[in-house]
């Protein structure tokens, strides 16, 4: 056991990235994730690694492309408007199959929106985000310890599948402090990357590319990507299921899941049989969690800090076998335990139609 440290979410990601062997981090300031860049501005040089503040989010993600293509474990971070700017680069990175980690500490949108926590980038994160058929592996951590653990896993899976991984947090997770434990500094063995452009000493030319002008060639490349995504969907689904035998289920991720759990406890205290499905991977979405409870579940209530995004995946997973309700707040408002509890009780009492 290592020692427990009290750390802010944004800083904890930074330290976790260092422990995971992140060799290069490219920053651009945007609230509410600045502490991550500021932390790494200090820590990366201490470890003789690369910290660079880019001229824009666009440049930062393309620096990640270059560094990842050169074989380094690379990361960038931003918040919603900045992540929108990175989408072109993320599409190229996915197409060229470069491993990297992208942190999105989501804030309210659309547009410049607010600087308060939100979950309204779920569509963008899980459905591709940029142009073309591609997927990111998307994590929705709910505690600071989980931020740390999933940051390590993000680098590991990025390399394993040669795919970008997104950590979809929110402003609240980035700012809150909790005790965390980190893996030791020297625990990670970096994998060999024979495909990387490091100079062609002793081997033929390597090329990092996403251009496939021949239609058959691009069709084959896309088939290869889809096969990889199917493998990820088979092997990397992660979720938490509480009270599998319940009648009603709350569905929530990230910060919202913490409040939803409290609402569940309150309802349980009133004698209701309520459970919680908390997706940890937002893509691949944990359909399996729903399959486990569909035989007896009477209804689902999806709670999000959005106008209703993940609820669409919940409906696909439930596939009409039970009513799926939604409760959401936007703009930086975190749904309260009482609000969620009341929405749930309405459903239980039959007063609410899906």
């Amino acid at each position: 056991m290592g020692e427990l440290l009290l750390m802010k979410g944004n800083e904890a990601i930074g330290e976790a990235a260092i422990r995971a062997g992140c060799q290069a981090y490219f920053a651009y300031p945007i609230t509410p994730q600045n502490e991550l860049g500021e932390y790494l501005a200090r820590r990366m040089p201490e470890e003789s690694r690369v910290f660079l503040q880019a001229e824009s989010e666009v440049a930062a993600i393309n620096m990640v492309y270059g560094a990842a293509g050169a074989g380094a474990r690379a990361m960038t971070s931003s918040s919603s408007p900045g992540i929108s700017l990175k989408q072109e680069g993320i599409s190229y990175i996915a197409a060229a199959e470069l491993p990297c980690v992208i942190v999105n500490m989501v804030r309210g949108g659309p547009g410049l929106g607010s600087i308060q926590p939100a979950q309204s980038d779920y569509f963008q994160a899980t459905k591709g985000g940029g142009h073309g058929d591609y997927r990111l592996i998307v994590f929705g951590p709910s505690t600071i310890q989980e931020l740390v653990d999933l940051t390590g896993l993000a680098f590991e899976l990025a390399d394993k599948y040669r795919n970008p991984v997104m950590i979809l947090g929110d402003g609240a997770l980035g700012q809150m402090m909790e005790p965390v434990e980190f893996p030791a500094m020297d625990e990670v063995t970096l994998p060999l990357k024979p495909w990387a452009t490091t100079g062609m000493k002793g081997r033929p030319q390597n090329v990092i590319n996403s251009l496939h002008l021949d239609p058959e060639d691009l069709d084959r490349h896309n088939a290869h990507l889809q096969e990889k995504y199917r493998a990820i969907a088979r092997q990397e689904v992660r979720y938490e299921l509480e009270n599998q035998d319940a009648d009603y289920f709350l569905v929530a991720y990230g910060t919202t899941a913490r409040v939803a759990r409290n609402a569940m406890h309150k309802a349980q205290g009133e004698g209701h049989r309520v459970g919680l499905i908390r997706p940890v991977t937002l893509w691949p979405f944990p359909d399996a969690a729903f399959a486990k409870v569909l035989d007896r579940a009477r209804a689902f209530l999806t709670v999000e800090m959005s106008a209703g995004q993940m609820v669409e995946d919940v409906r696909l997973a439930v596939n009409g076998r039970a009513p799926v309700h939604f409760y959401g707040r936007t703009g930086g408002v975190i749904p309260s335990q009482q609000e969620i509890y009341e929405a749930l009780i309405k459903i239980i009492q039959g007063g609410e139609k899906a």
Partner: protein
Amino acid sequence: MKQLFGPPRALQERPTHYCPGCTHGIIHRLIAEVIDELGVQEKTIGIAPVGCSVFAYDYFNVDMQQAAHGRAPAVATGIKRVLPDRVVFAYQGDGDLASIGAAEIIHAASRGEKITVIFVNNTLYGMTGGQMAPTTLLTQKTTTSPLGRKEGQHGFPLKITEMLALAAGAAYVARVSVHNPTHIARTRKSILEAFKTQIAGRGFSIVEVLSTCPTNWGLSPLESLKWLEENMIPFYPLGVLKAPGGEGMK
């Protein structure tokens, strides 16, 4: 008999897709000759842009990355920062570098990134069919300035290389041309100096090469060389704008 001149090793055997008389081929060969001369083929990483030279990874026989439109200096930065002992060059056209990639090139120069940029200026967007670029000359006709570029409507041509010479991080900045053998030799020398500047760790280096586009200019290859000499050079004067240890033409 001894071979005096043949294909450089850092160039692949594959023929290029460039139009007849397009000077991209000359510039590719000069870069490859410089890589050979410096003996750095096995430690060089090139970046291909978006534009006519997007397939540069098929022509250079070194490790290559293909970059998004205008982002080659950022990609080059990412590579060089994690592999500081390698030689990293970006190959960019004028639409790619001076328009959509203006921010990336200025900040790479300003940071003094130890990379080399070969900036091929043919005054328009070639790959997409000859549209106006920031470098298009006044009165020059393109498909998006069909009556000729007018300052009031389209703005003025941009001398971005002069701007880059002002950047403190830029160590070697030159503008050259490939319109005749003398200037081809000078271009080779400039590219060599730019690579040497990088290898010596002196900072950012860029060589703007005035180039032709016979297809979109609607001229024969030989007429294009004459057009370059008579129209481009007066507006885009040749010379070394900045060099380590002193400025000006050497």
